[in-house]
């Protein structure tokens, strides 16, 4: 049974997609088979993996919207050991469409259970909202990774996410556990960043990872080159931090 990790935060631009890509690549480097699932209508994860989200015929939208679609048939191998269920801009309409589908929140979980993809990790990249797509990821996942940008507004969005987790716990997926809180875009010389990190640790205690993802250019430049930070700038602090994150997660098994 693969470890299924949802990377979610209601706020956009906190590093969800970046975390999914780089954590996936880092886990793949460790020899694990990893499946990335792009549920974001912006399909940034798909674009980072050098696929055109506007011209894909089989995507996560296909899986969610059609009952008999084989998930395996939609997968693309984008890196050794790294597979992608690409996203699509059509996902923007998926929430409306899914509102009338029976058991809409369980679609992704059912598809994954049916497919039984032989991977070690499944990482879900969620849209920056708490709609049905995010709920699908939270229902399908066993663990939740919350990237929090070291800013006040990003902290605020955690509250809404946790409210949704309460509901998901109560009604749909009581097994959902918190893998950890990852502080992203940390600015070393910023008092505010330090304060936010301290508050994260005071609230989530040992669930906050010891390392942080620094705010550096390599993270922003890597998607332009259609690469992960680990391949774009292997010696950058971000690449090292993501490798550490992968090691921590991998050795928890």
């Amino acid at each position, binding site marked *: 049974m693969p470890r299924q990790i949802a990377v979610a935060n209601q706020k956009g631009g906190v590093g969800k997609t970046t975390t999914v890509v780089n954590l996936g690549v880092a886990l793949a480097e460790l020899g694990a088979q990893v499946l990335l699932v792009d549920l974001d209508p912006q399909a940034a994860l798909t674009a980072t993996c050098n696929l055109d989200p506007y011209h894909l015929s089989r995507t996560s939208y296909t899986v969610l919207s059609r009952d008999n679609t084989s998930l395996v048939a939609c997968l693309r191998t984008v890196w050794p050991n790294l597979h992608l269920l690409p996203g699509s801009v059509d996902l923007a309409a998926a929430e409306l469409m899914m509102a009338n589908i029976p058991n809409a929140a369980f679609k992704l979980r059912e598809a994954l259970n049916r497919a039984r993809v032989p991977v070690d990790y499944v990482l879900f990249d969620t849209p920056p909202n708490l709609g049905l797509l995010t709920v699908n990821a939270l229902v399908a996942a066993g663990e939740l990774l919350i990237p929090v940008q070291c800013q006040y507004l990003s902290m605020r969005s955690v509250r809404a996410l946790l409210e*949704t987790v309460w509901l998901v716990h109560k009604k749909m997926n009581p097994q959902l556990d918190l893998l950890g809180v990852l502080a992203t875009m940390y600015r070393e010389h910023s008092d505010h960043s330090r304060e936010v990190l*301290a508050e994260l640790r005071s609230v989530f205690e040992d669930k906050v990872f010891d390392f942080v993802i620094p705010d550096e250019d390599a993270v922003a430049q890597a998607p332009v080159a259609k690469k992960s930070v680990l391949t774009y700038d292997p010696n950058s*602090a971000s690449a*090292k931090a993501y490798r*550490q994150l992968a090691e921590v997660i991998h050795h928890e098994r």
Partner: protein
Amino acid sequence: MSDESSVAGKGAEIMLPPQGNPFKKDEPPKASKSVGTPAEGVPPAGLEEEPMDLTPEDIAARFPSTQDERNAVPVASGDAAASVETATSGDVATPGVVDSARPPVLNKAPRFDLEPTPSLETFAATPMDAAASPPMAATFEAPAEPIMVTESMAASETAATPVDSMAAPISESIPPIESAPTASAPTVGFQPYNPFASAPDAGAPSAPALGAPASEPAATREISPTVAPVSTPPAPPRQGSGSTAVSVDVDRPDEIDRLTGRGVTLDFVKTPVTEDEFILQMLITDERVDELWDRIEKAEKMAINDENTSPKQRSENLESLKIARNLLLGGKRNYEDATRYVVEVESNLIYGSRVHRWSYSHGILLLVYELVWLVLLVLGIVSGPNFAPNFATGGELLTREFVLTIMITMLSGGLGGVMKSIYSLTTHIIKRDFDRQHNLWYITGPIVGLGMGFFVVLVLSIGVPTIGGAAEGRTVYVFYVLAFLVGFQQNVALRLVERAIKLFFSGGEEKESEEKSS
């Protein structure tokens, strides 16, 4: 960094929902200081110290009667400050918590933080009044050092470097907050700062010129050292102060001297953006959400097992319940919409059980009633020739044949009405969807049919002058058939009559209204 813009000690308030951390369910939920739903039995923040009964002085202070009073800026006199010190000593130890969303307690002077902002260490070490301090502050500890993997570390470390070797005490890397600049707020007075002005004021920050190179030294772009975060929390906003509040730096005598205008600073107020959320949390409690969820599940079971509704209706009910569930998953803001869907389904189910019952009670009784009418009408048609002479006058108009034609035509109309009623009743009883509100329609169906039959006779008498002769030939059967059809389709016939009446008596008006509607 000013206390106002600091998030220190507010982590739980900002990040945790009223229910608490979902991943630590055994812990009691942490009370929210000023945002969200207060813990059960605890009034919202600040209300516990709000006097319930205002004295006339309080009211006068809250609603100034003169323009000067309204414009006056609260002054922190020495006595007032001292009284604040004694009255709210606990509050002084809670930096960063500025409850500016509501007016201050009126029998206290405005609060001014006259002490320097404590550092993290002193903050943690200072014994605080548990009742007055925020929940997280009581257990605050210096956080562990964030491991920043710098370039220098990258050069020295190897791939096998353990994580622990990079850890260091936080006190070495995080400068205490007290070292932050505590300069007073920019003194801009009431002169608006124009960022596009070519010749900036001396006190205003100089904006970089358009097209300036990105590599311009940072020092040239830095704003004046006097423009620094405010060291004291702003005074709470007064009633009707709009979107700005006035704060006073009591360390600057010149500023106090110029309280009437030039020395004050304009700060952003903590706008009540959480008010809607607060109301939402107050009105749509978790218990209500749970209750609605349970109602959805209950209704779903009822809808699945309901034998009274048709498959199509059942499918629609299940669809509505799924939409309601998805709406509820979308958040508390969708509570009303979700409720509407659930109520619709519940009313459908209740209505289904009612019409099921009525189909076998009212429906069967009415069917018997219609059958009785059927028998009577058939008997009337069969025995009509025997009764017709009794009503004939022997004159030219009411001859025996004409009376017989009228009788049979009326009975044919009644027969049509009965047939229609029996057909409709049977259909509804089979479908088990008979609604008793149509009882009267079924009861009057045969009678209206009789009347419509008579109407047919009259209309055809106008169109056929030789009615007496018509009764002699086969044309009379046209009367009967027409009467039967009119009785059967009473609604259509009545509508035609209605239109004919309108056409004759108010034709112009109808045409006009039709044109308008088209």
